């Protein structure tokens, strides 16, 4: 059991009527990893995650989550799983503390509710009604409810959609601290590239139900091996060269210009370039 993957998916397929929402995807998430499923709206992220959570039934393929098929797994399996859904508007009349305390009761070995509330930064709001929380605070509460059972695997479906950039950064800090300390495996979906880059050990890009890239953030889309572009201006004229060894090119140019190369620039494709190319390269 020790090193078996937390999630293993082979050929997962889901249709809604004629529409193929998830098209034969494979995923492997080792225990302890933070895995981001990145993709534009409608790519099939929620569908995939909700199949892994046992909410929706698949049409084809194999799925194993914490060693069991979510479609058949029972109550004990859920002890190991924490879920933060894409949207929630329930619980409105309860207080934050009542809510977290109550959800802790469902698990045999829960975390201390007050501690969890402190971890997500809601101590000041502990006695406020959930309906009085701001959008960001509500999301933090959802995370608190997701982690209070002490899960081995945490699902986060677009946790920061609608946040302003500062709130998003704070939320990333929260996830990092909550996750690192306990070695929780995380499956995160997002349509923000920076979010995947900031949090994930590994990123899979999902476009129209298909995985078009799956690697570490650094080497996504062959970025680590991509050629660098050396550009400079030659008598006001923009020149550039692609090369595996930009150092050699620069040495060459320096010799040629006898010192400073005018307008010298070395660039590699940014993660964003790669991402846009990947999601654009599929279909129309």
């Amino acid at each position, binding site marked *: *059991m*020790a*090193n078996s993957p937390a999630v293993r998916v082979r050929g997962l397929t889901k249709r*809604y009527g004629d529409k193929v929402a998830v098209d034969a995807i494979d995923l492997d998430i*080792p*225990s*302890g*990893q933070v895995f981001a499923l990145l993709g534009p709206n409608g790519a099939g992220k929620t569908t995939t995650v*909700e199949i892994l*959570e*046992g*909410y*929706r*039934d698949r049409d084809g393929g194999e799925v194993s989550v914490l060693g069991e098929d979510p479609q058949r797994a029972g*109550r*004990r399996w*859920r*002890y190991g*799983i924490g*879920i933060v*859904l894409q*949207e*929630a*508007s*329930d*619980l*409105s*009349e*309860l207080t934050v503390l*009542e809510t977290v305390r*109550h*959800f802790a*009761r*469902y*698990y*045999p*070995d829960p975390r201390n509710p007050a501690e969890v509330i402190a971890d997500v930064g809601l101590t000041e709001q502990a006695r406020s*009604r959930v309906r009085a929380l701001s959008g960001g605070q509500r999301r933090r509460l959802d995370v608190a*409810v997701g982690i209070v*059972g*002490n899960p*081995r695997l945490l699902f986060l479906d677009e946790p920061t959609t609608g946040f302003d950039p500062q709130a998003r950064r704070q939320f990333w800090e929260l996830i990092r601290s909550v996750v690192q300390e*306990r*070695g929780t495996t995380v499956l995160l979906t997002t349509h923000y590239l920076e979010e995947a880059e900031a949090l994930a050990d590994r990123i899979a890009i999902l476009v129209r139900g298909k995985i078009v890239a799956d690697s570490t953030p650094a080497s996504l889309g062959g970025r680590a091996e991509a050629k660098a572009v050396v550009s400079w201006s030659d008598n006001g004229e923009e020149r550039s060269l692609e090369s595996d060894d930009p150092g050699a090119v620069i040495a060459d140019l320096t010799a040629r210009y006898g010192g400073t190369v005018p307008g010298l620039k070395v660039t590699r494709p940014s993660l964003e370039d790669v991402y846009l190319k990947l999601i654009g390269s599929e279909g129309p």
Partner: protein
Amino acid sequence: MSTVDSPRQPAPLKDPSATVLGLHRGVLELKSFFREWDQVVFTFALPIVLLALLGSLFQGVYEGSTVTAAQYLVPSMIAAGVASATFVNLGIGIGLDRDDGTLKRLRGTPMPRSAYFLGKVVMVLVISIAEVVGILALGVLLFDVTLPTDATRWVTFSWVFLLGVVACSFLGIAASSLARTGRSVSAVMNLPYVVLAFVSGIFYTPVSALPEPLARLGAVFPLKWMAQGFRSVFLPDTILPQEIVSTSWEHGRTALVLGAWCVGGLILCLATFRWRGRRER
């Protein structure tokens, strides 16, 4: 990274008990109910307010008895109050739970599903009892209702109450699946409730004054029988001529119809209850 050295790995821990969780859910449901102003006003306070209003409007004493029109109304309003606390309340509550993501969230936790229903039962029982107490208190204070001292009447009250609560609760749970969205659920529940209250002779008194076809329709559903059962508890037998069957309180039949609705309601619930909302397939 191995999970073996994590301190919380093996040692099978005790599963939290479904009964205990159900009781905790009941407390939570009650807190939510009484904090939601709409619900308190429409499902809890409305029958009491209606009794106060109608009781002050209706005048007169029924022939051959000492029962005033207002006193006649009291047991009928208890039945309507119980139906409101069970049928309407559960129908709306579960419809909203399905719509706002409560059911979805719960389904993603290890909560035993029975705990959800047990929580609703606890809530409904407490609210129904509070409703009965509220209506009786009003009846005693405003309309000189005297409570029976004789134990057999309270035995009758208990079984009518329990069968009525169970039957109307099951019907409410089943009806919650009819609403398409959380917004429509209140209308979907209140319309049949108001119609039933009319054809069961709750607002239109005495019940024997109802036109025959309406009375027949009312006799199909549990509310009419609950109201009749409660009248047999709180009114003297001299009021019997105002009943549809003027010779007997028909306790056997009441038990039969309410019991049948308990069984039928359970079957309906099992056949129609959806944990999934419309987006989850």
